[in-house]
């Protein structure tokens, strides 16, 4: 591998690293923490554009053979995840001014980049850890409430368990196949012996924990609630997307063995049902988003069951749509005290205080519910078409019916905003400033994906 190749293959990651350095230097020279915003924004945009361009020219290569390799799919995944980080940064600019947020976010994105190019299980582990470690800090950065610390600790402990499970899985893979490459893992997926099966189950369980699939979901509602709004947006969209896209890469051409398939189907459906049911009872907006994200993780895992060539497209499209609509909803939350704006009650009568925000949140909710003409419908359609294509007609039907339960919870938010009188003590203000920019950016993207889904699907 030539130096140019090395430079090019990991260009988005290099840019992120440069950005982190730039923020560190800015932090030293300037005493205004908000100065970190601009370098962070430029970095993320540059990294996303670099990945977009490399995807466009169809670059592929393996600068570190057996550990780190890139192909157009990897670049597409990076481009969409880094692109999603742009509105999140705008959100963060409104929320808090510490440069720490931007730095942690970039570090986590760097982890996502490694994860999405990993060829060995060690690299997977490394990427996943680098993705998660800054998150623990990000959660605690919302340290305005005592719950934040508790949530961060809970997340840390469960995340630690996830790490341990993953490591155990890796060592079992090594024992079963004698290697630690991704190819070895795929061999293990079809292994008949106890060791190989144990290895695969443990690795997938670790991924399920990171993606918040029932029964590994318990951390998500607390972590989302404890974190600040931008941190929630980051966890719900980019981190979840990175984990799922990495799993697609890990599976590669391989299909799952029948027993494993049954487990994935069962847990995915369980996640959809439980996520939707539990979300109905929530009184906080972020907890609602958390449970809804558990249900959506279920759809994403269902997409893994499809034929190998359709998986990446399905998951990537779903992540784009799901990520955009989630960020849109969070960006439109009314401003105010953190605990106040999180209360679902604060949304009551929002249409009369801030019609634009109410309409945009409604668009996001309907898209998450998978109701056309919003892009969430196309994403849902894609997932269930993929599932049906692989012959699991019954699973698709059950999944669709389970998704029906979710409609109620999204309607509830709309009902609050449009049909309920405002709560007496609502002291929230309409959205403005950088959050409005974030909303505008995501809205434009949502409309683009909604009106021309074919273009996006063609790009992937």
């Amino acid at each position, binding site marked *: 591998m030539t130096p140019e190749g090395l430079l090019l293959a990991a260009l988005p990651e290099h840019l992120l690293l440069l950005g982190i350095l730039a923020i560190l230097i800015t932090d030293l020279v300037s005493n205004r923490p908000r100065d970190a915003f601009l370098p962070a924004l430029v970095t993320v945009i540059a990294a996303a554009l670099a990945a977009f361009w490399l995807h466009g020219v169809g670059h592929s290569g393996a600068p570190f053979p057996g550990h780190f390799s890139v192909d157009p799919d990897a670049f597409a995944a990076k481009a969409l995840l880094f692109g999603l980080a742009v509105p999140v940064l705008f959100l963060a600019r409104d929320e808090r001014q510490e440069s720490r947020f931007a730095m942690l976010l970039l570090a986590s994105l760097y982890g996502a980049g490694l994860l999405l190019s990993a060829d060995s299980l060690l690299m997977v582990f490394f990427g996943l850890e680098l993705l998660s470690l800054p998150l623990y800090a990000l959660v605690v950065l919302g340290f305005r409430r005592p719950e934040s610390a508790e949530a961060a600790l809970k997340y840390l402990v469960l995340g630690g368990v996830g790490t341990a499970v993953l490591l155990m899985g890796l060592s079992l893979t090594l024992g079963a196949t004698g290697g630690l490459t991704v190819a070895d893992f795929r061999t293990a997926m079809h292994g008949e012996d106890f060791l190989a099966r144990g290895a695969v189950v443990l690795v997938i369980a670790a991924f399920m924990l990171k993606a918040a699939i029932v029964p590994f979901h318990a951390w998500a509602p607390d972590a989302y609630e404890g974190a600040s709004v931008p941190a929630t947006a980051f966890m719900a969209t980019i981190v979840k997307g990175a984990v799922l896209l990495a799993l697609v890469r890990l599976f590669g051409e391989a299909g799952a063995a029948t027993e494993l398939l049954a487990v994935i189907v069962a847990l995915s459906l369980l996640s959809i049902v439980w996520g939707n049911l539990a979300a109905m009872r929530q009184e906080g907006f972020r907890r609602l988003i958390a449970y809804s994200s558990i249900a959506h993780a279920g759809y994403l895992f269902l997409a893994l069951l499809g034929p190998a060539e359709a998986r990446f497209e399905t998951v990537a499209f779903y992540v784009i749509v799901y990520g955009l609509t989630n960020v849109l909803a969070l960006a439109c939350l009314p401003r105010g005290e953190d605990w106040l704006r999180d209360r679902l009650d604060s949304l009551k009568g929002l249409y009369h205080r801030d019609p634009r925000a109410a309409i945009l949140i409604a668009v996001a909710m309907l898209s998450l519910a998978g*109701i056309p*003409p919003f892009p969430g419908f196309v994403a849902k359609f894609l997932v269930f078409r993929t599932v049906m294509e692989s012959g699991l007609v019954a699973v698709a039907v059950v999944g669709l019916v389970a998704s029906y339960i979710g409609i109620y919870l999204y309607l509830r938010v709309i009902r609050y905003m449009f049909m309920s009188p405002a709560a007496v003590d609502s002291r929230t203000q309409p959205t403005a400033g950088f959050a409005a920019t974030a909303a505008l950016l995501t809205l434009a993207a949502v409309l683009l994906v909604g009106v021309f889904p074919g273009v996006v699907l063609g790009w992937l």
Partner: protein
Amino acid sequence: MSEATALNLLLFLPVIGGALLLLLPERRPDLVRGLTMLVLSAQLVLAAWLYLEFEAGVPGLQFETRIPWIAAWGVHFHIGLDGLNLLLVLLTAFLGPLVVAGAFTSIKQDVKLFHGMVLFLQFTMLGTFLAQDLFLFYVFWEAMMIPMFLIIGIWGGERRIYATLKFFLYTAFGSILMLAAVVYLAFTVLSQDGTPSFAIADLYALELAVPVQVLLLIGFALSFAIKVPVVPLHTWLPDAHVEAPTAGSVILAGVLLKMGTYGFLKLGFPLFPDAAQLLTPLIMTLAVVSIIYGAGLALVQDDIKKIIAYSSVSHLGYVMLGLVSYNLLGVQGAIIQMVSHGLVAGGLFLMVGMIYERCHSRDLAAYGGLAKLLPVYSVFFMLLTLAAIGLPTTSGFTGEFLVLLGAFHAAWPQYEQGLIYPLALASAAVLGIVLGALYMLRLVRRLLFGDTQAPEAEGGTLRDLSLREMGILTALVAAIFYIGLFPNDFLQKTEQAVIEYQQRVLPERAEGGIR
């Protein structure tokens, strides 16, 4: 302007209107109303022009547009007019301006959002009728629920939230199963033809095993039957109708309910002909049960809106009966009946809205002798009642008469072969007409005649219809009598499409020449 452009313009006018609406200030409801009225009137003119330009006897679609939308899946933006949707498009465009005019004084809060939702609804309803691609159809079909959900939920009566959630959750449940069937069809097309396609014409050509057809038809039929609504899936309807604002009720009764019957006509039966034939006795039974049960319920209601709501269940039972007769008379009768019911029930809901605006009560017992208080109102109410009963010279007669004729036509040969059941059902359907006269005359007697009383009538007087209200009702009554007296043109323009429908569902009978 090319003709296909005109059809696209017809469809997208509400979107353009909605975009312009966004620019208007919330403080100027008069401008908002004026703009919406203008847009919808232009739409009506366009629809009328398209109707006149539509050529009878030409097979296939006219004014067709077909451009790729999601190329990889074979999804096209594909719209066109044929004999099946022509009259329904005209009906939708006709009711649009009347609905807005009817809401001039009754909608006072969130005027901009209301008119935006009416335009959104108009767009999705026309889209559903015009779509010739199953994916596109589904998108419009589902999207339709959103504005209706808001219209009932925001401007509705006291129990509006319960009613609107019930409406949405009922219809969404049907849609989910339909979606499963759509996904399955999509993937069957791919495996049979090798190229993905959602074109409804391609789907007609699919060869499916009978058990698969039955399952898929159930998926589609559940969704359509909830919309129609067919007993026993009708329980959302009275709640939605009663709680909806007048405009919502008019659109619901006038157009939305026809989506279900149109769905059966366009997709349900012709896509799965073998299953349709297999299930015909069941569908026929449910249709007749709807006719009689709906009429029976209408007979005992004390809420004026509920009477009309249940009468809708009964009248749409006739449409279903006509559709499963699979002969020219019955199916054309069903189409005329759809339009007729749209006009009559729409008109009756508008009239209930007008009296509610004056007296704030829908309780039948609170009224009496309105003929003396509101003479002009009473004349119009009487005319609409006669049309609802199906008196000759009104559209109701044309529709119901043709449907019954068709049903008997289909039942008679079967009777000669020893099958009594279809004939018995057709005869039972006649009973619905008697019941229809009974409940409508009961409504008229208690509302218009008897001792004079009306809530909130200050000094024993009420303001009679304004010019605006008279204009709306005159337009409706004129249309009702036009269809009743001159149905020929409508029948000619729908004939070719109905023959095609018949050939798809019942090839052998169509070839046998039985009409």
